């Protein structure tokens, strides 16, 4: 077994680069790393990790702590700090032509509460807890769980799903087959689109909030409470619109329904303080009353 750790120093602008190059025979033992980086209050943490479990959690400390674990014999983890940015990149060493079934690394990263995150991964899972900075996620098949986060949340997924619990701020999420679940959200701007995945929104529509949810074949279900006040526009070309909300049609406040064959429900609940737009190609739209 041969383990090398290279510490490269660059210019002040480039910051410090830590490269851990692990080379070991096939069937190597699990490798672990732990690095700490002192940062200011709102650092940017970038993580590129193709496969594995990622957990990001917040702490009231001005440091980023990266703990990693991987077993691949050709995995390289590069961690770089430049000013207030910490970037973690996992990649394979050597030629790309050989089979690499063990290209997987797990990370547990602790960041300051106000940290910004940029996470790119392909498979596995990503969990973020209690971080209150803007964050973006770019995944293929990885599932995403956000808990008690707040900020501008941007999610691009091909097949991964999202469960967002007590999320605040603004959320833009797109997927092809991934589903979205928003539980007890405190979001004032929501834009969700999925093709075959389902959308489930169970929470309050905040005053002046905008909630746009679109699917092609998946089900969209939103649950409202007696206190909610919103303008509603629900349109499905071929699917059903099932409504339990006391919608009052008011042409003065809401544009008329689109022409054509779509099934539409347009109107207001109470004063219409929020705007809710639900649209589907042939999926079912449910507007349900919360129990």
């Amino acid at each position: 077994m041969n383990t090398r750790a290279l510490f490269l120093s660059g210019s002040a602008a480039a910051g410090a680069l830590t490269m851990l190059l692990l080379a070991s025979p096939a069937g190597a033992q699990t490798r672990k790393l732990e690095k700490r980086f002192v940062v200011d209050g709102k650092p940017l943490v970038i993580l590129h990790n193709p496969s594995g479990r990622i957990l990001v959690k917040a702490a009231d400390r001005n440091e980023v702590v990266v703990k990693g674990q991987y077993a691949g014999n050709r995995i390289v983890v590069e961690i770089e700090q430049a000013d207030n940015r910490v970037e973690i990149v996992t990649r394979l060493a050597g030629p790309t032509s050989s089979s690499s079934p063990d290209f997987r690394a797990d990370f547990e990263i602790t960041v300051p509460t106000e940290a910004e995150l940029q996470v790119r991964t392909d498979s596995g899972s990503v969990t973020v807890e209690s971080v209150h900075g803007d964050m973006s996620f770019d995944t293929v098949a990885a599932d995403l769980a956000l808990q008690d986060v707040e900020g501008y949340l941007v999610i691009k997924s091909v097949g991964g799903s999202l469960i967002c619990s007590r999320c605040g701020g603004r959320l833009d999420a797109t997927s092809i087959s991934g589903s979205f679940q928003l539980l007890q959200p405190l979001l004032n701007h929501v834009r969700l689109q999925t093709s075959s995945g389902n959308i489930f929104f169970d929470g309050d529509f905040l005053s002046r909030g905008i909630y746009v949810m679109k699917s092609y074949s998946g089900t969209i279900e939103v649950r409202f409470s007696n206190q909610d006040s919103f303008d509603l526009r629900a349109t499905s070309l071929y699917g059903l619109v099932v409504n339990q909300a006391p919608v009052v049609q008011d042409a003065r406040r809401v544009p008329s329904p689109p022409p054509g064959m779509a099934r539409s429900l347009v109107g207001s609940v109470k004063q219409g303080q929020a705007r809710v737009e639900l649209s589907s190609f042939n999926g079912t739209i449910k507007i349900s009353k919360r129990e």
Partner: protein
Amino acid sequence: MHCEHFEEMLAQQPDGPLPLEAADHLDACLRCRLLRDDLQAIQVAAQEWGSEEPVPPPRVWAAIQVQLQAHGLIAQPSPHGRGLYLQPAAAKGWFAGGWNWASRLELAGAYVLLFLVAAGLAGYQTVPVADPLDRPGTTAQVSRGALDGLGPALDGNMQRVVASFAEYDGSVALSLRQNLTIVDNLIAVCEKTVREHPGDPLAREYLYGAYQQKADLLAVAMDRSTLEIK
């Protein structure tokens, strides 16, 4: 001559005759022939669109540029150069050097075409892409003839990209294939709806959205691909 050198020559003389050295390389390198053929196909398609509208609408190109930049396929134009610049391979890929400019250029062309297909089928009436230069708005209709044959070519490119994933992560390849099937089915259903209800703006909007999803999926696949010059 190496492929990289050939690409530079091709970029410098896209329309003119190639130097002898480059022509020799073209005879010997299937990879570069495919690249040249794709570029010529793009050129032909552009000329066909141009025959209907002598000056390409600025908004069309601005929209393409915005889309390509948004997906990280190109960087901002260099102040020292001209045209659009592709990002270095090491900037984004999982594998250092695993993604090269030639592959990106070729598949970026496919992405452009796919985007144009979507825009053309939507009649540009539902494309809310703002012109960053705030130039006067124009509308364009891409002729159906120009689009013939693009579908299979794009699907071929997509299959090549997805095939390269088998060496690296089977679950990613599987996910991409499954989602490609979903989007293709979606496009088929939406096209049928548009044919049956040509006047329905919602149906056209969904069709446009489906094509855009395929373009996005292709961009994701390109970004993760390990295709390289053989």
